[in-house]
C-alpha cells in the first residue's frame, strides 16, 4: 500500500460485485476484494459498505465474549480501527473477512470478562429430544414437514428475524460457529482459524447449533412440539 495515496478519497470501480452483495460466498468475497482496494485508497464509502456488510455478525460474535452490548460495540469499533491501521500490513494470505473476524475474536476475548475457555462442549444435549423416539430408537414423533412452508408462510425479513433470534439464544460457542460458518459462509478451516478450535470441536458445535435452529424452524413452521 502506498501511504501517500491512502488519504485521497477516490472512487473507482463498482461499489459491489456486479450481482450485488447478497449472492453467497464467492460474490461476497469478490465484493470484499474490490472494497478492500478502495479502502486502501482511503475511500470512506468502501468503509461504510464493509461496515454495513459485517457489522451485525461482528456484534453477534463480540457479544458471545463480553457481557454487554455497549462493550461489544466498543470491541467492534476497536476492531475497525485495528483493521484500518493494519491495512498496510495485510497481505491477503487470508480473506478480508477471516482477517477481520480474527481481529474481532482476539479483541473480544481479551476484553471479555469470561474465563478463557477450555474448549469442549458445555451443551451436549441431543439433536432431537429423546421423547420423540421409541424404545428402539426409531421415530415416534417424526419430523413435521415445513420446508415449503418456510418461504410460503414467512417473508425473508421475518425468517431472518426468526433465525437471528434463534442464533442469539444459542450457547455462545455454538453461536460463534454458526455465525461464521452458516451465516457468513466461512469454510470450516477458516472458522477453526478464527476461533482457534479443532475441526472436530467445530463440527460438534455446528451440529448442536444447527440442530437447535432446525428445531426452532420446525416449531414455528411445522406445527411440531411447541
Amino acid at each position: 500500500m502506498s501511504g501517500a495515496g491512502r488519504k485521497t478519497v477516490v472512487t473507482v470501480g463498482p461499489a459491489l460485485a456486479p450481482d450485488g452483495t447478497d449472492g453467497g460466498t464467492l460474490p461476497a468475497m469478490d465484493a470484499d476484494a474490490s472494497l478492500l482496494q478502495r479502502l486502501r485508497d482511503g475511500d470512506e464509502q468502501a468503509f461504510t459498505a464493509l461496515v454495513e456488510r459485517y457489522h451485525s455478525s461482528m456484534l453477534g460474535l463480540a457479544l458471545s465474549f463480553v457481557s454487554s452490548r455497549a462493550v461489544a460495540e466498543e470491541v467492534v469499533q476497536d476492531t475497525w480501527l485495528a483493521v484500518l491501521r493494519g491495512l498496510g500490513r495485510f497481505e491477503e494470505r487470508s480473506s478480508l473477512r477471516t482477517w477481520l473476524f480474527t481481529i474481532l475474536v482476539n479483541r473480544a476475548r481479551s476484553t471479555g470478562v469470561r474465563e478463557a475457555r477450555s474448549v469442549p462442549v458445555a451443551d451436549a444435549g441431543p439433536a432431537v429430544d429423546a421423547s420423540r423416539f421409541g424404545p428402539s430408537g426409531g421415530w415416534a414423533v417424526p419430523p413435521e414437514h415445513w420446508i415449503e412452508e418456510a418461504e410460503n408462510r414467512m417473508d425473508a425479513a421475518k425468517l431472518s428475524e426468526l433465525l437471528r433470534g434463534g442464533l442469539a439464544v444459542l450457547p455462545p460457542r455454538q453461536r460463534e460457529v454458526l455465525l461464521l460458518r452458516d451465516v457468513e459462509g466461512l469454510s470450516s478451516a477458516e472458522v477453526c482459524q478464527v476461533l482457534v478450535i479443532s475441526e472436530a470441536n467445530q463440527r460438534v458445535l455446528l451440529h448442536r447449533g444447527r440442530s437447535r435452529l432446525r428445531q426452532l424452524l420446525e416449531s414455528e413452521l411445522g406445527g411440531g412440539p411447541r
Partner: protein
Amino acid sequence: MRLPSRLRLRPRELACQQVVELVTDYLEDAMSPSQRRRLEHHLDGCPHCTEYLAQMRETIRLAGRVTPEDLTPQMRVDLTNVFRRWQDEG
C-alpha cells in the same frame, strides 16, 4: 406402512436416534466410507430421516440468507468517527 422399528432393526443397523446425531458429520464429509454407506443405507429405507436431513440442509440454506441487522444511528456515527480518526492519524 413401516414396521415398528424394533422389528426392522438388525444388529448393525443405525437407529433414527443415532442418525440425527450423524447428520452433520455426513454433511461435512467427515465419515469413513463404511459409516457413510451405513447411513445412506438407513436413509434409503427411512423417509423420516430423509426428511430430517433435508430439513438440516434447508436450515443451513436459510441461515446463509440471514440479513444483517441495521446499524443504529449512534453506531453509524461512532464508526464514521473511527474512519475519520484513522484518516487524521496521517
